């Protein structure tokens, strides 16, 4: 929809595509990252009975912008023993990996970067690029801590992709589509049509499915937490053991790039979880636009609901981060291979049997 609008406006498909592609970055991800970094500091501070940033703007809300200005001015240090090309590409690759995921995420019925039929699959696939970027960063830094962090990160992300995909497969099995837009459309109406509450089709199966959907949600949420390297799964950057993992050697804007990617990733996984289980951009209580008969209000409302759901899950991620201690490497692997994967498998089979009914 927005693409058609830009196409009409500029009369060129290339310009329209470029604008369409950059739109989520400048309209959504950058402001979101700025806001999320501030939120993270505020949430962490208040959870520890502190105040957090207070001096730049009202309650420090401009703090992140000040920090970005600082990072922009910093010297871009490249050590002499670094593998320069890899070292320079790595942050870009990490950012591209997390940004590409946004292409298939439906922000509202009027805006979806690319309405791919393979939406979820595409997201899972391109987030794999992040691992390559992280490994590159760790390798090219020529620093033992960076390399250790990168190795851990690769091991972690690859292991936790399995339960994530198993849960996604569960949903795909129930709904029969990989397209996130269609998935969201299916869960239209009210919140009882959301997948977490058994999906839109009414019947015994719906109620039987609810507990297993909740298990599925918990599994995908935990494993997506691990995929974005957030505490309690932040062993790749474990400050107390690895300085700060794979981005130890980075400074200035390249470091900011990793940071931005982390926050973009946080929102991306939250958005996927919201789209799979919580109706995506659908409102839980019906639309004001429908009520008063203004059609153009609906996409805006949808954007609001989508952002609200995404932000809620981002908040829960932060909440968990400031609650739980970091897992040990063996605990991390045990949690994935001994608990999440078998449960996800059983869950998949049970939901499969229920759908067969």
């Amino acid at each position: 929809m927005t693409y058609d609008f830009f196409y009409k406006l500029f009369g060129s498909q290339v310009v329209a595509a470029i604008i369409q592609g950059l739109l989520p970055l400048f309209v959504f991800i950058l402001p979101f990252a700025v806001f999320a970094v501030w939120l993270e500091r505020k949430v962490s501070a208040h959870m520890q009975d502190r105040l957090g940033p207070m001096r730049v703007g009202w309650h420090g809300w401009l703090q992140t912008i000040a920090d970005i200005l600082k990072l922009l001015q910093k010297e871009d240090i490249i050590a002499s023993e670094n593998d320069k090309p890899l070292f320079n590409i790595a942050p870009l690759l990490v950012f591209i990996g997390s940004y590409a995921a946004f292409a298939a995420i439906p922000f509202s019925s009027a805006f979806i970067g690319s309405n791919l039929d393979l939406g979820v699959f595409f997201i899972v696939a391109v987030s794999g690029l992040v691992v390559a970027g992280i490994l590159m960063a760790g390798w090219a830094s020529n620093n033992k801590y960076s390399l250790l962090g990168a190795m851990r990160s690769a091991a972690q992300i690859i292991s936790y992709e399995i339960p994530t995909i198993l849960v996604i497969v569960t949903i795909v099995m129930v709904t029969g589509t990989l397209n996130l837009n269609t998935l969201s459309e299916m869960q239209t109406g009210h919140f009882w049509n959301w997948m977490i509450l058994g999906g839109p089709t009414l019947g015994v199966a719906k109620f039987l499915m609810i507990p297993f959907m909740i298990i599925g949600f918990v599994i995908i949420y935990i494993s997506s937490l691990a995929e974005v390297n957030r505490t309690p799964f932040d062993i790749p950057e474990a400050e107390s053991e690895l300085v700060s993992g794979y981005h130890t050697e980075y400074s200035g804007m390249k470091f900011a790039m990793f940071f931005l990617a982390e926050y973009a990733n946080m929102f991306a996984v939250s958005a996927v979880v919201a789209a799979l289980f919580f109706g995506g951009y659908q409102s839980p209580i019906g639309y004001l636009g429908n009520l008063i008969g203004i059609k153009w209000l609906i996409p805006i409302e949808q954007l609001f609901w989508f952002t609200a759901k995404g932000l809620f899950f981002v908040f829960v991620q932060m909440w968990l981060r400031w609650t739980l201690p970091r897992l040990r490497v063996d605990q991390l692997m045990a949690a994935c291979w001994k608990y999440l994967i078998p449960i996800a498998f059983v869950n998949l089979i049970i939901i499969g049997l229920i759908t067969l009914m």
Partner: protein
Amino acid sequence: MREYLKNIWTAIITILIGMKITFKHLFVPAVTIQYPDVKPQLPERERNRLYVNMDDCIGCDQCARACPVNCISIETVKGLPTEDLGKTSQGRKKALWVTNFTIDFSKCCYCQLCVFPCPTECIYMTDVYEFSEYERGNLIYNFSTLTPEEAEQKKINYAQFEADKAKEKAAKAAAPVNTSAPKEQ
């Protein structure tokens, strides 16, 4: 299997308990003091920057001798009998010009040992603790009320007085010879 399920159960329950605690703390008022805007309440006997009330100082050098790091340096000159140096607030007559009284706060360890021996209680701790400087030399505080020229003058005066006295003495010593002569006449 039992162990397995129990592990899952403990994990979920403990995580939820932890999350409940942190969530509660979101609404606990912060203990932060917004320092430059809000000053913390200092304890009653806090030890910070020293101040010397020169009106009361008699230049007895007790504080400088008590200081364990030798950061107080005092230089005094005796006053002339003709000069009135004023009195301390306790009515004690001052006899010495304090020509130099500096405290080097870059050395001071804020032990307060200099405060106790002072007979006139004129050196004491204030509640000022924000006095950082860009130059180390700025941390040497001069408390003397005399300007350098005045201090120089006092020294010259006293040297003059001493010299005069010495001359007088010399004259006195020579006098018997002088005074006896006219008697003989």
